[in-house]
């Protein structure tokens, strides 16, 4: 299928919310103040694991200005983003399971009073042994149990077997087995969690404003915790100051604001301090991985055996999803005929892990791309050649049933290699300088409803009239990634008008039509399908009117650049606005409603619970790809790694807004570089976080920015709306292994745990030196 000539899709246009943001006039939740609004604060546990013996808040209530105090008993219903494993509560009930868990919340006339009241709440704890390591947690499960219903301290474990890996390994020429460990990192979005709840007692209606990326799931979870029907709750998103997965489930701020507001009949706002963002975490799962890869004599992958222990922290969260994703992600972007994955997600007394940009892909990608780098050396070819040999092609169906309708992954590899001069540099640079290559991919447009339902995942309503013009309604969440702008571009493209003339109403469960949320890189694809569907209905109706005005058959009309014209006689034309005017005068406001449901693949049956193993990401209609090549200088004196240059080439299908894609890719690169080199949340022996601030938790600043050269490779997925794929999670995948491979090329040391700090580099260099002198001495 030929790529159509688009006019609105493919334009690098500024964000539709840009002007408000540069003026400082975009309203974020914490900017809002309502009449009679009270301020909420949460009292947090100083213990990582303890029984709550008693909470006495009588003194807090006596403090002038304090309006109400709640504890876990005020809203004890369990919530969770995955209903089957829901085990979180708004505030701890009976026991705390991590340092910083909320035990009580206060509403007061101002923040200062609320804070002072927290000190007056007396909580009596009986400390329990603290489990911080997943291996220890499993070993000591008989003696210390974190959740009563998880006797082995395991949330869930799974095994997936495809083909016969054992037989395949026996026949392999090259087999490598290694262990990798990833670190405990946080999203560090700039805007802390914040929620404003306004409960209207007479009508029983709750209005929520919240910094969330999942308005629908927040809506559902509020309904569960508050025991209110969803139609009595409205969730509205003001501007969102970044999320990266960390706002991909409800937060206790939401529940505490809502419960307090209902209790006092006044609006209540709860905004976290930065330390609370860290304490409530939901960042990336540290993974303890064993991977074994087998290649035949020609370097083709024959089998992978993957064992992963995920350190989940205290509660379930997105855990089971992340766990199965790690298992599923080994099946691409290379052809893997035989594979086994054994995975388990373990409870520990840490702030809970959850969803984070590139969920479930980043960890196995680190292991796999590093190992293939080493195995190329075993085979005696370049890592590039090995990866090209094994790379998937359009139409590939993995043994785990992942179907790749279209891919330009090989073009990504080629482009990055050519632009960086990888082949001329790899293995040939002086000691201390290195270059590393890695690839990656991510799902695009996928998602199950996390509760079992087959309803469409996105609905878009487009309204056309002479008064409001064109308005796209969808309850999608623009968390900064720019989906509102992209939706406007796609709607304009399909309607034949300009993106500047499209209004977008999103992020509201009442004025927006249904959407599952911004996660799993689903929105451009999903809303694209729904927009096409809705616009087609509008175009059909307008064409019938325009036909009479132009004087030709409706099915011979085209719409472009704000005009209807005959495709055979383009001079026969009429302005789009005039057609709308005639239509609305005769009929009234015109609407079209479009839906997106991910394709149902054979063998997946949610309602009866039958699943094809490995099909967790099987619903993904397409996949985005990326290749990165990193060049590093390792300072042999200080151990510091300086990144000189990053060359990236990505397949995001047709870029709807290339400037926005560049922003996603560059942002992904720096985001993942933080995890590779700097970031790690640290706990002391008692489980208290010792670096819960942006002073001690180091995210990359502009000073760490290397030269970045990105390429959007020419791509168009004919099965996708406008040919699109994801662009915001694929490019985080190759970063960590590409850096690790570059460091290996520089100093010959393979780092298998993160972050690669100067201390680790110096230690490794010392060990290497000792080994060398030992060898030369013998």
């Amino acid at each position: 299928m030929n790529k159509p000539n688009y006019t609105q899709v493919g334009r690098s246009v500024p964000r539709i919310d840009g002007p408000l943001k540069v003026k400082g006039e975009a309203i974020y939740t914490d900017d809002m103040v309502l009449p009679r609004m009270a301020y909420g604060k949460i009292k947090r546990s100083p213990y990582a694991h303890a029984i709550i013996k008693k909470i006495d808040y009588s003194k807090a209530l006596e403090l002038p200005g304090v309006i109400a105090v709640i504890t876990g008993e005020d809203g004890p219903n369990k919530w969770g983003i995955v209903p089957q494993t829901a085990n979180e509560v708004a505030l701890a009930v009976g026991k705390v399971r991590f340092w910083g868990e909320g035990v009580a919340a206060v509403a007061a006339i101002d923040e200062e009073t609320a804070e002072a009241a927290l000190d007056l709440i007396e909580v009596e704890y009986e400390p329990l042994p603290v489990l911080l390591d997943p291996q220890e947690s499993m070993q000591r499960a008989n003696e210390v149990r974190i959740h009563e219903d998880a006797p082995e301290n395991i949330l869930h474990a799974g095994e997936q077997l495809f083909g016969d890996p054992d037989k395949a390994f026996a026949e392999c020429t090259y087999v490598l087995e290694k262990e990798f460990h990833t670190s405990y990192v946080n999203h560090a979005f700039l805007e802390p969690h914040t929620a404003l709840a306004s409960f209207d007692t007479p009508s029983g209606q709750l209005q929520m404003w919240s910094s969330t990326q999942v308005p629908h799931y927040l809506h559902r979870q509020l309904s569960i915790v508050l025991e209110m029907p969803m139609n009595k709750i409205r969730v509205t998103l003001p501007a969102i100051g970044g999320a990266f997965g960390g706002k991909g489930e409800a937060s206790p701020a939401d529940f505490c604001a809502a419960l307090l507001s209902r209790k006092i009949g006044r609006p209540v706002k709860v905004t976290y301090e930065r330390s609370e963002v860290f304490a409530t975490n939901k960042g990336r799962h540290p993974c303890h991985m064993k991977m074994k890869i087998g290649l035949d004599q020609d370097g083709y992958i024959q089998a992978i055996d993957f064992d992963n222990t995920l350190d989940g922290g205290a509660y379930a969260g997105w855990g089971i999803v992340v766990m199965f994703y790690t298992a599923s992600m080994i099946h691409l972007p290379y052809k893997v005929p035989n594979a086994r994955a054994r995975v388990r997600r373990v409870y520990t007394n840490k702030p809970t892990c959850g969803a984070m940009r590139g969920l479930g892909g980043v960890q196995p990608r680190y292991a796999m791309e590093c190992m293939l780098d080493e195995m190329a050396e075993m085979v005696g070819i370049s890592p590039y050649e090995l990866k090209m040999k094994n790379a998937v092609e359009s139409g590939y169906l993995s043994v785990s049933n992942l179907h790749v309708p279209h891919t330009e992954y090989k073009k990504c590899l080629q482009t990055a290699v050519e632009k960086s001069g990888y082949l001329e540099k790899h293995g040939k640079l002086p000691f201390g300088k290195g270059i590393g290559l890695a690839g990656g991919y991510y799902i695009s447009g996928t998602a199950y409803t996390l509760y079992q339902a087959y309803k469409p995942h996105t609905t878009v309503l487009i309204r056309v009239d002479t008064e409001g013009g064109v308005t796209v309604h969808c309850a999608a969440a623009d968390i900064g990634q720019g989906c509102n702008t992209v939706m406007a571009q796609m709607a304009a493209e399909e309607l034949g008008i300009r993106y500047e003339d499209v209004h977008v109403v999103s992020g509201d469960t009442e004025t927006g039509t249904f959407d599952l949320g911004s996660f799993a890189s689903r929105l451009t694809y999903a809303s694209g399908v729904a927009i096409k569907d809705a616009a087609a209905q509008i175009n059909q109706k307008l064409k019938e009117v325009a036909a009479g005005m132009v004087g030709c058959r409706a099915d011979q009309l085209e719409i472009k650049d704000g005009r209807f014209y005959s495709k055979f006689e383009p001079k026969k034309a009429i302005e789009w606005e005039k057609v709308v005017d005639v239509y609305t005068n005769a009929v009234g406001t015109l609407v079209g409603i479009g839906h997106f449901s991910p394709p149902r693949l054979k063998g997946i049956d949610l309602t009866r619970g039958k699943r094809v193993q490995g099909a967790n990401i099987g619903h993904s209609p397409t996949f985005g790809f990326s290749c990165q090549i990193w060049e590093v200088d390792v300072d042999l004196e200080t151990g510091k790694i300086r990144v000189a240059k990053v060359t990236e080439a990505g397949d995001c299908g047709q870029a709807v807004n290339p400037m926005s894609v560049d922003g996603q890719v560059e942002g992904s690169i720096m985001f993942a570089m933080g995890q590779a080199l700097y970031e790690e949340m640290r706990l002391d022996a008692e489980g208290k976080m010792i670096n819960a601030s942006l002073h001690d938790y180091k995210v990359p600043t502009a000073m760490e920015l290397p030269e970045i050269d990105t390429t959007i490779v020419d791509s168009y997925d004919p099965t996708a709306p406008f040919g699109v794929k994801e662009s915001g999670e694929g490019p985080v995948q190759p970063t960590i292994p590409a850096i690790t491979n570059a460091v290996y090329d520089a100093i010959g040391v393979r780092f298998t745990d993160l972050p690669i700090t100067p201390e680790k580099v110096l230690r490794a260099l010392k060990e290497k030196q000792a080994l060398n002198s030992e060898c030369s001495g013998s």
Partner: protein
Amino acid sequence: MEKTINLTVNGETRSIAVDVNQTLLEVLREDLGLTGTKKGCNQGECGACTVLMDGKPVSSCLVLAVKADGKTVMTIEGVAKDGSLHPIQETFNQKGAIQCGFCTPGMILTTKNLLDKNPNPSLGEIKEAISGNICRCTGYVQIIEAITSLAKEKNARGGV
């Protein structure tokens, strides 16, 4: 304990009774309704609360309001003039230097200070100038591109 301070905010002289332990950030956001100044960490680490005090960028969460007595403060709300965007704002918008927008006000004020004192900054000078403003979305590239193009424009026009 309260104290009355006099300061000029975005060109307007204000007399405000503040608590002695209130920060400038709190006074701007809560007393003056200038919520374009953001609170990201309250520890002077993220730069989201950057304002210009007597022309210099400060983390307003680290400045006690009483220390702003007699000073001139510019917040993001004071950057656009007569309803039209300042060239820095316009360029940030055009170049994709914004995603979630939470760092944007502080980043723009830091940029304003940089370009006011150095119309032709090198890449290194740009990076250093904005190194106190964390942006977690963009990876800084498009922000730096915006600043670089502003510097070029400024030079082409012979400085503004």
